């Protein structure tokens, strides 16, 4: 039987079991790295550095995880804070690297043209709308969970998601099936 995230967290807390934490990293690395890649505009090296930092912080502060939210929600919050701190340090974000974006994408599942337009449309969204859309629509968080991750009011999250989605829909109108 596969252990739940809560079981693994308990093992880390009680036995300081780093294998259990490794399993948590394996489970969530893709979504955390994916989110950070989007936020850093496909700067893969920076995104992975931030993801590593986020997981190390999660390990060091795992006692502060009280199980009120999903482990992934808690993790996204740490990752988002790492990104914000880094962005504040750098003051400016790097430009999008189209070649890197295309290289990381699997052309089998989505039309490359549609994916390109979607990524471009996403990159044009303001950061607060992009983050809300990525968390809620791509990573499946509820508005309430996203509000916790971003540490902003629930109403603001809803507004950001709504506005972001509207802009994406307008940008992708030509691709939408009738």
């Amino acid at each position: 039987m596969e252990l739940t995230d809560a079981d693994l967290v308990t093992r880390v807390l009680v036995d300081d079991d780093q294998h259990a934490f490794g399993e948590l990293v394996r489970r969530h690395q893709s979504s955390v790295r994916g989110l950070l890649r989007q936020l850093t505009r496909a700067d893969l090296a920076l995104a992975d550095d931030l993801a590593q930092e986020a997981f190390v912080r999660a390990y060091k502060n795992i006692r502060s995880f009280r199980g009120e939210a999903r482990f992934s929600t808690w993790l996204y919050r740490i990752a988002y804070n790492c990104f914000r701190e880094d962005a504040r340090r750098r003051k400016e974000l790097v430009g999008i690297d189209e070649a890197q974006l295309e290289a990381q994408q699997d052309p089998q599942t989505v039309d490359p043209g549609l994916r390109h337009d979607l990524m471009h449309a996403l990159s044009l969204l303001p950061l607060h709308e992009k983050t809300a859309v990525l968390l809620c629509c791509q990573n499946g968080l509820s508005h309430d969970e996203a509000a916790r991750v971003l540490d902003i009011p629930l109403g603001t999250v809803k507004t950001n998601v709504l506005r972001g989605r509207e802009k994406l829909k307008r940008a992708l109108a030509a691709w939408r099936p009738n």
Partner: protein
Amino acid sequence: MDKNSQEDWLDRQLRDAAPYIDDGGFTARVLQRLPRPRRQRESLRAVILLGITLFASALAYVLSDGGRFISVNVERLATLPMLWLFTLALGSGILVTVAGLFAAISKSRELQS
């Protein structure tokens, strides 16, 4: 196309645009950066404490002329009145109990948090 299905379509495209990222050694790199497990740190601390204790005991034994001060003090204790001895034992007992209680309460608070 109604509003709900348009939203489903957009969500699906967003999810599909985020393919699974292969681990590629990422987990191993994270595990390398973690601080050493608590148990290892605690066993190292125990070894250091034991070493210091043994060294201090040996030093005290040498400096006190082969531990002569112990026999001198035991002799002194033996000559004390019974009431003084009782008070000394009671005081020591209370002191140890209070220290134990304090340690237990701090530990339970730490576990609760």
